[in-house]
């Protein structure tokens, strides 16, 4: 840690991991509800568990993005953060708002929550991933603006590196596109059209800039490869990301009432979306191969390479699998989508956040560069446990999805949804088992923060 104010990142990282745990726990509840339909019914119906699962994910990813920014922006800008106090204040505002919202989901019925937060004044609730009460959404905007101001002023004051600029661009885009969450017309087609401007342009647009910037930062720090080279790659990768990703939004406009030419535009451009992910994989391995030093923090490097590979598999390959409109006609809204969603979010955004946490946490906790060897071994175990179980979750859901599409949409005698669900329950059981192993991996990950604390720091074996 080179600047005192980088320390504000720590609570963000801790809260992010706590919410990650909540996300996984509720994921397991949902997974069980898929096969034991009345589990926790009617106390925690599926929709509530799902809201907690997805919203906890979104909030913890945002928390970790903010933590990452507070950590890397001062170091890149070579100056203290503009206002550490504002950053800490916003942490508590964000955490309390998130906690209250989750409590609202769990303790109240959703319609009651809508009523007491006065959703009718400006109805924005009840849309996938945007279930937060309007007042929480406004809170998110305020936190985001304060955050952008803080980070922006820091960058303005200090050295302007490409990593910082790209990060700032991504964060600004994140805030700007979130504003479409407040647009909710009665016309369902318009509603859905612009809903994707939040969801797609986030995860397949501006978030990838954030991902790229964080990855580039960690690689600069751990490999010692020339910054010029890494920044050049960063520009090319994010250029390809936005070139393919913006019009690639069209792959959501096949069947929601939008004109049919989107089937062409969407298919062609989104078919190219794996390219930037592939370039990212090539880039990461290239840079690591050309490293000028062996950084003692091995897990951070492992997570960085893991991000590159798993993002390519999850977002690239699994996305391509069902992105062409003739295929998507049969797979749209099936378990294939769920399979892709799981591996893409884990591979791209969960892993990049763990990468930066893995890199920064030892420094934030007073180490010179890395944790003890014992702690590192635990962390690497957690990497393999979580990553492999996520691969299996994805494979099982893909199997379920293929069977579902076939039985429900393609066969001679298409069967009703609920009947098909019975037929594919074996896959759901297997998915749940893989999910439990994922949870074990997560427990091991958390344990890695506590084991070997008194052991000496690991060094490179040169």
């Amino acid at each position, binding site marked *: 840690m080179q600047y005192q104010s980088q320390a504000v990142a720590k609570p963000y990282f801790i809260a992010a991991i706590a919410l990650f745990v909540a996300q996984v726990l509720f994921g397991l509840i*949902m997974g069980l*509800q*898929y096969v*034991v*339909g*009345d589990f926790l*019914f*009617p106390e925690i*119906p*599926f*929709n*509530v568990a*799902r*809201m907690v699962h997805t919203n906890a994910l979104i909030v913890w990813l945002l928390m970790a993005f903010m933590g990452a920014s507070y950590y890397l922006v001062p170091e890149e800008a070579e100056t203290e953060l503009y206002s550490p106090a504002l950053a800490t204040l916003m942490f508590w505002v964000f955490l309390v708002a998130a906690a209250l919202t989750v409590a609202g989901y769990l303790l109240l019925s*959703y*319609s009651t929550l809508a009523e007491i937060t006065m*959703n*009718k004044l400006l*109805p924005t*609730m*009840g*849309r*996938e991933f945007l*279930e937060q009460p309007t007042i929480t959404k406004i809170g998110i905007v305020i936190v985001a603006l304060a955050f952008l101001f803080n980070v922006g002023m820091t960058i303005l004051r200090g050295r302007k590196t*490409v990593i910082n600029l790209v990060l700032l661009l991504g964060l600004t885009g994140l805030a700007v596109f979130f504003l479409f969450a407040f647009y*909710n017309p*009665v*016309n*369902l*087609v*318009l509603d*859905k*059209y612009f809903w994707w401007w939040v969801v797609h342009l986030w995860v397949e647009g501006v978030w990838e800039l954030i991902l790229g910037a964080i990855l580039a930062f960690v690689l600069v720090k751990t490999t010692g490869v020339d910054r010029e080279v890494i*920044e*050049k790659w960063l*520009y*090319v990768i*994010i*250029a390809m990301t*936005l070139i393919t990703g*913006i*019009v690639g939004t069209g792959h959501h*406009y096949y*069947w*929601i*009432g*939008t*004109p049919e030419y*989107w*089937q062409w*535009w969407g298919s062609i451009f989104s078919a190219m979306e794996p390219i930037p992910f592939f370039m990212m994989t090539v880039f990461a391995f290239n840079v690591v191969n050309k490293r000028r030093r062996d950084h003692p923090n091995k897990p951070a490097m492992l997570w960085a390479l893991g991000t590159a590979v798993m993002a390519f598999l999850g977002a690239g390959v699994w996305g391509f699998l069902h992105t062409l409109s003739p295929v998507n006609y*049969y797979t749209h*809204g099936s378990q294939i989508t*769920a399979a892709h969603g799981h591996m893409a979010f884990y591979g791209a955004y969960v892993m990049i956040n763990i990468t930066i946490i893995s890199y920064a946490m030892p420094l934030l906790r007073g180490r010179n560069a890395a944790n003890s060897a014992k702690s590192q071994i635990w962390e690497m175990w957690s990497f393999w446990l979580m990553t492999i179980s996520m691969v299996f979750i994805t494979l099982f859901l893909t199997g379920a999805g293929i069977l579902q599409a076939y039985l429900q*949409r*393609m066969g001679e005698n*298409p*069967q009703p*949804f*609920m009947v098909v669900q019975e037929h594919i329950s074996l896959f759901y059981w297997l998915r749940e088992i893989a999910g439990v192993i994922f949870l074990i991996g997560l427990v091991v990950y958390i344990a890695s923060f506590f084991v070997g604390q008194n052991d000496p720091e690991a060094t490179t074996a040169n």
Partner: protein
Amino acid sequence: MAQPFTKIMARNIFYGGTAFFFLLFLALTFDTMGQLPQRDNRAALSGELGPVIAQGKLIWEENNCIGCHTLLGEGAYFAPELGNVYTRYGNSTDAIKGFIASRPAEGIPGRRSMPQFNFSDEELTAIAEFLKYVSEINTANWPPNIQG
């Protein structure tokens, strides 16, 4: 010989390419907005039942129906697709109302069940009319069959 690959050029491509494709996306969006009136069944919204449909959408949202169901393929995959439920139920709003009203409050042992929301008849009508409106959106023949 100059450097074969410069950072400045990569940066220019990033800014130029992004602006270019965002403009293209806006142009396509502009065209789409012009085409939607022929496809999105907005006649129903400005018709007599418009306010009822609007109420139905609000009820749909304020009970987080999307948390289990899909609507035009988007949402959760825990419960059936509802974009075409009106046609699946024999073009009957009454059948939809009857189904929602008859859900057991304590669920069905061992199986998935829709919660009992205790809607009034007016609310049930609003939801059913909303789903009817959705089923009449031109979705390029999706879903492939009546099962959704």
